[in-house]
């Protein structure tokens, strides 16, 4: 084990040579935005949100796959990086149908949280409004391709943590999508162990537990009276 010293955002940091810039920054309490990174599985460097500037290198480097080296001078935040991160998020929101109001993950979605934290308050690009299906054939889980950002976290946990190898990617470009087994309905996938790791790994509402979606919520008509009369009875005011 050999230690390397480097500078991240002006802060002196020492880290083992085997770790990535992202690990070193996290250890030092510096937060770099990520989306496709998931602790415990290997990194693919696909979302490009963790790109950082390294002095002396003209290209931006992904923090999640770049190993630290001696004397590195890293900037994790700059006007340019913030702009690119916002644009990346805008591109994601325009690409598929991300409608937070009716999404199972509303409030605990990583994409939504990133949009807040990066100050992405509007999308300047034309929405693509693609027509994607929802796979509801599985007994426990559902897959809504409209919310998928193709981070492949589900694929990686399925192959490398659970070892089932059910999830995969088919197609390319904007037509790429997550499939189960040999592109068959999830419910008929023999290899799926129903472990639910993919659902837990999903940063958005693309993979969800059944019963949690807006459409599946039960209507409780007894609450109607409360809604109508609560204001008069001052029941909405906390004590």
């Amino acid at each position, binding site marked *: 084990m050999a230690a390397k010293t480097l500078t991240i955002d002006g802060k002196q940091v020492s880290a083992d040579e085997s770790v990535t810039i992202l690990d070193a920054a996290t250890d030092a309490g510096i937060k770099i935005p990520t989306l496709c990174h998931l602790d415990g599985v290997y990194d693919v460097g696909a979302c490009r949100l963790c790109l950082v500037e390294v002095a002396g290198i003209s290209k*931006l480097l992904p923090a999640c796959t770049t190993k630290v080296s001696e004397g590195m001078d890293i900037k994790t935040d700059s006007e340019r990086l913030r702009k690119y991160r916002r644009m*990346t998020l805008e591109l994601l929101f325009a690409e598929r149908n991300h409608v937070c109001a009716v999404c199972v993950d509303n409030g605990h979605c990583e994409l939504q949280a990133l949009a807040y934290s990066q100050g992405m308050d509007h999308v300047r690009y034309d929405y693509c409004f693609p027509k994607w299906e929802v796979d509801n054939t599985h007994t426990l889980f559902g897959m809504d391709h409209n919310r998928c950002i193709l981070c492949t976290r589900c694929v990686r946990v399925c192959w490398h943590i659970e070892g089932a190898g059910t999830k*995969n990617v088919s197609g390319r470009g904007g037509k790429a999508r997550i499939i189960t087994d040999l592109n068959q309905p999830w419910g008929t996938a023999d290899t799926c162990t129903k472990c639910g790791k993919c659902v837990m790994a999903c940063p958005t509402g693309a993979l969800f537990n059944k019963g949690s979606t807006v459409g599946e919520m039960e209507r409780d008509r007894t609450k109607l009276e409360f809604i109508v009369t609560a204001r008069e009875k001052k029941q909405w005011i906390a004590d």
Partner: protein
Amino acid sequence: MVIDDLVAIAEKERAAQKKHVIRCCMAAGCMSSDSKGVKEALDKAVKEAGLEDQVEVRGVGCMKLCCQGPLVQVDSAAEGATVEVNILGQGPLYQKVTPEDAASLIATLKGGKTNVQMGDPKDPFFTEQFSIVLANSGIVNPERIESYIAADGYQALHDVLREMTPKEVLDTILKSGLRGRGGAGYPTGLKWATVAKTASPQKYVICNADEGDPGAFMDRSVLESDPHSVLEGMAIAAYAVGATQGFVYVRAEYPLAISRLQTAIKQAKQHGLLGSGIFESPFNFNIDLRIGAGAFVCGEETALMSSVEGKRGTPRPRPPFPAESGLWGSPTLINNVETLANVAPIIRKGAEWFAGIGTEKSKGTKVFALAGKITNTGLIEVPMGTTLRKIVETMGGGAPDGGKIKAVQTGGPSGGCIPAEALDTPVDYDSLTKLGSIMGSGGMIVMDETTRMVDVARFFMEFCMDESCGKCIPCRAGTVQMHNLLTKILGRKATIRDLKKLEELCDMVKSTSLCGLGQTAPNPVLSTLRFFRNEYTELLQEDLYAGPNGNGNGTKEALSPMI
């Protein structure tokens, strides 16, 4: 196989040389206009004339002037002399030959006349060429290893294995100044040295034959015309870096190249030029073919390796570079077809000879595929540093029907458009980069005044959008949005703000994409914007709200309808 066997094969081949050699192009270009039928008809005509002992009808590779195919060249020995087997064709070059012409062509051997269109061998298209990579193209029979051996084939491999150390081979390549012909122009010797330095028991050599740029067909022609030169180059590279297994990754869209490679590998194995103990040295080397499945991105080296491993062909971040950790985690050397085809000639003729050709920083020659609005469509090989004007106007014959050349597109979807004003630029890696284009693999698409540059930019953007693998967001979603914006501009629905958005996206996709495909996808837009910006602005609609900077901060009056 020892050197005496090699010499014996070459001598036997030379001795079997007949008085007349009729070379008939059997590469994909001419075969698409029935050169196969022409060759069969020629064979039949020779038989009917009873000239079998005097005339050889030889199926050869590309004879370069593809637009006039099928091409047939008739070479005859002078009275009393013998035809050299592999000299460059000197005899008449017949063009657009049909099977019905066969009889009259054979009749010319006995002093008869023919009405078949004849090309001028003195045309600059031929005389200005300088052949290293294509030296055997159109001369040897690509389906017979003996034909290649008679052209000094596998001599270099013998010399390397029996007389040189791997270090000496590396030094020779380094000294020659050869740079990668796949597009980026990385010094080949350095790449080899990096792989050679790694201490892995297992190393690989890969030949990248996944030529995917629209309008480019150099590598296909090399593989179809002279597959053994690539195999020999791979074997020399393997010896230099210490590899024992090679792969040729060739795209499935090149069936003829695949079948010629299969034949070549089989023949080389039969002759002991691939396999164990080559030339009775301790060197073992095998080559296998891997066929692509129609993805442009698999020309990117990390995606290519992923595909060879049998996985989904998507790129991964570098470092680690393939030279350290490539195929199945082993050090891997990846070179382009044309780079490898340069290796044997460098060994045969020496590094100094090669370094004497070309410019200071770009050595040797480059093969270009001329296509588009140009009179002479086909393949040319010229020394580095030749000006674009010479290539396009002198050799290519300029635009057909008296048209005026407007721009030349080099480097495919990763390259850019060079305007006619800059045609005096010498073609080398650095000059083209300065112009915002790249050397690329060698596709050269000529455009005349009727071409709209915004159309060109959108065509290439559509190509990149379709070929993006979908792994990283900037390339997957960014190309879609750039394509949308270009479509909007072409539909005269865009304003200055859309153009700004497009430029911003170009910058972002270029800076943040994972692999070369995304990083270079905006180049066609950027270069057309640089040289033909007015063609974009002419299509724009007036934007009342844009303001002088185009950022939406217009005057109060202009803004008011929005509020």
